[in-house]
């Protein structure tokens, strides 16, 4: 059986409609009015230009909302797998006894259509953290229940650098299939059983072998062109960058690169691979409440503050170093790849102008500088094992 299929634009919308009709949740990029309360405010006092839109991954209410031609959604897919906050358990107190109720770890099947490849790849990167020792059933349950179909990136800007960090704008890493725009529709390439099941369940929407014909070649050209567009932004040697960071913990360059950062933490919220979390109890009334996991940010001083008042990361440049170190040295030493998929959101969202493309370039240059080679760099510390 061929591994490539054609699906027309109308059939893709039809597929979304069929899935919705069958009660399956479909998550996809949706253009939203930048004014978030259209009914109440927009009609009266809101003076924003309503022709402007944000793009977001949303659960579709209708297939018409599917919006495939725009750039990166504001937030990555992360929140659909590691929600901004989620219950870990709840409790009820009766006298001195406490009953703890479990939360379900099984989830209803759902489909993500037109995921950005950097966002799907990030899920596979975070999979490793969630499974390297203890298994996080909440993360895994959502991962298993979700079929993800990527879309070869239609809009690449100068903050994108996925090809510099081991992924690509037409990658299927972390996803189950890939759509690539061609004349009149898309070429669909399933990558996993879940990706193939999507065709099996909706055969009439897909048409046969496009391997050899012009549509297949058009898709190949489109994929290659998108890779070239990103590759022009940044090229680094990730291994030298890793070794340089690992052996230059106190290097002034790392403080210099952090100088504009004021620790707002926006980068960690929008980052598809930032997964650090807090666990807090939410008292919902007398004697009952919910223990929740919430997104946290390594850029906040409270992240590492001890109850004694001591803080091992008590300065902003040290916290910024932690973020760079975690992404490009600590995680790579443990898992082999980097904790970044080059989506560029951190750069776009930073109001202080911290630009990760520039920062990685600066570290890459430092790592290549002759005479700066650290002998220890050849032997990364085994402490991470």
């Amino acid at each position, binding site marked *: 059986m061929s591994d490539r299929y054609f699906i027309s634009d109308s059939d893709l919308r039809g597929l979304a409609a069929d899935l919705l009709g069958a009660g399956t949740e479909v998550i996809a990029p949706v253009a939203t009015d930048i004014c978030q309360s259209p009914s109440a405010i927009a009609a009266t006092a809101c003076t924003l230009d309503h022709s402007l839109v944000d793009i977001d991954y949303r659960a579709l209410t209708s297939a018409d909302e599917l919006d495939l031609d725009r750039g990166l959604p504001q937030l990555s897919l992360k929140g659909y797998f590691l929600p901004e906050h989620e219950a*870990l*358990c709840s*409790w009820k*107190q009766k006298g*001195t*006894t*406490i009953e*703890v109720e*479990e*939360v379900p*770890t099984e989830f209803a099947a759902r489909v993500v259509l037109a995921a950005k490849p950097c966002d799907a790849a990030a899920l596979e990167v975070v999979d490793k*953290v*969630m499974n*390297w*020792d*203890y*298994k*996080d*059933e*909440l993360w895994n349950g959502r991962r298993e229940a979700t079929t993800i179909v990527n879309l070869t990136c239609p809009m690449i800007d100068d903050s994108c650098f996925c090809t510099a960090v081991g992924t690509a704008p037409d990658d299927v890493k972390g996803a189950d299939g890939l759509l690539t725009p061609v004349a009149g529709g898309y070429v669909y390439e399933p990558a996993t059983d879940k990706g193939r099941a999507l065709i099996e369940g909706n055969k009439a929407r897909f048409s046969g072998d496009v391997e050899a014909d012009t549509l297949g070649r058009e898709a190949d050209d489109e994929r290659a062109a998108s890779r070239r567009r990103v590759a022009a932004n940044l090229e680094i040697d990730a291994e030298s960058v890793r070794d340089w960071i*690992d052996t230059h*913990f*106190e290097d002034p360059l790392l403080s210099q690169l952090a100088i504009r950062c004021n620790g707002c933490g926006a980068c960690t919220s929008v980052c598809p691979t930032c*997964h*650090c*979390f*807090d*666990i*807090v*109890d939410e*008292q919902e009334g007398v004697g009952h*409440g919910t*223990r929740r*996991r919430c997104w*946290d940010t*390594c850029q906040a001083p409270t*992240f*590492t*503050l*001890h*109850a*004694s008042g*001591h803080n*091992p*990361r008590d300065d902003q440049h*040290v916290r910024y170093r*932690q973020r760079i*170190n*975690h992404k490009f*040295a*600590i995680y790579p*030493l*443990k898992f082999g790849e980097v904790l970044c998929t080059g989506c560029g959101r951190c750069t776009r969202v930073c109001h202080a102008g911290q630009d990760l493309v520039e920062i990685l370039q600066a570290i890459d240059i430092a790592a290549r500088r002759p005479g700066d080679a650290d002998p220890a760099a050849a032997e990364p*510390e085994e*402490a*991470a094992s």
Partner: protein
Amino acid sequence: MNIYQPLLTTVTEVVDETADTRTLRLEFQDEALRKDFSFKAGQFGEYSVFGAGESTFCIASSPTREGYIECSFKAIGKVTTELREVNIGDTVGFRGPYGNWFPVDDWKGKDVVFVAGGIGLAPVRCVIWNVLDRRDEFGDVTIVYGARSVDDLVYKRELEEWGSRADVKMVTTVDPGGETKDWTGEVGYVTPVVEKTAPKADNAVAVVCGPPIVVKLTLPVLEQLGFADDAVFTTLENRMKCGLGKCGRCNIGPVYVCKDGPVFTAAQMKALPAEF
């Protein structure tokens, strides 16, 4: 049951160690768990007061004492302040045991030296009882313990018990000015008292725990006495949430205190970047 779900324990004993430090004895409510729960000396857990949250401490009781666990804590943060309010019969949540442990089994036949300052005796107490409950497997046992004042000494009954044993060399000290009129122990900081006690380093291991300054100053003294860096053990702490290697905050450079630690040798400590 997901990995963040706490096990339920009942408080069966409350001991006020000092004005702000308390020890709780906890028994698992599940009968099978009460029987089967096991851990190793040095491991930690996440203790919770429902409504206040979770806090990280080592298990302060010895794995040789079965049927319960104990924790000692200073009421200083949000959770510990609430934990200080619990009474006998109340429910406390527990997740664990997590992390690595002191390789006590490797120390058979060796002398063991314990150095602790303040509340740092809690994780060391677990190892002390572990060694004393298997006393004939080890050589000489020396304990040097110091606190700011007599009032700040924790586990006072046990200090007396250890001090009265013929098979333990027990040295207790308080900082200058912290002594009372009837104080019979040493007066001085822990580090010079270790120097003065001068335990022999031949075929010996040392366990050091306390405020960062105690650990920092004691390590060179032990080195001078001849202790090799891989014969000196300590236990580190950092703010933690999950204890499972996921929440991403307890790392010192590439080392995660929750998974690679909390027990480290002096040799491992020296290789860490200056971030603690």
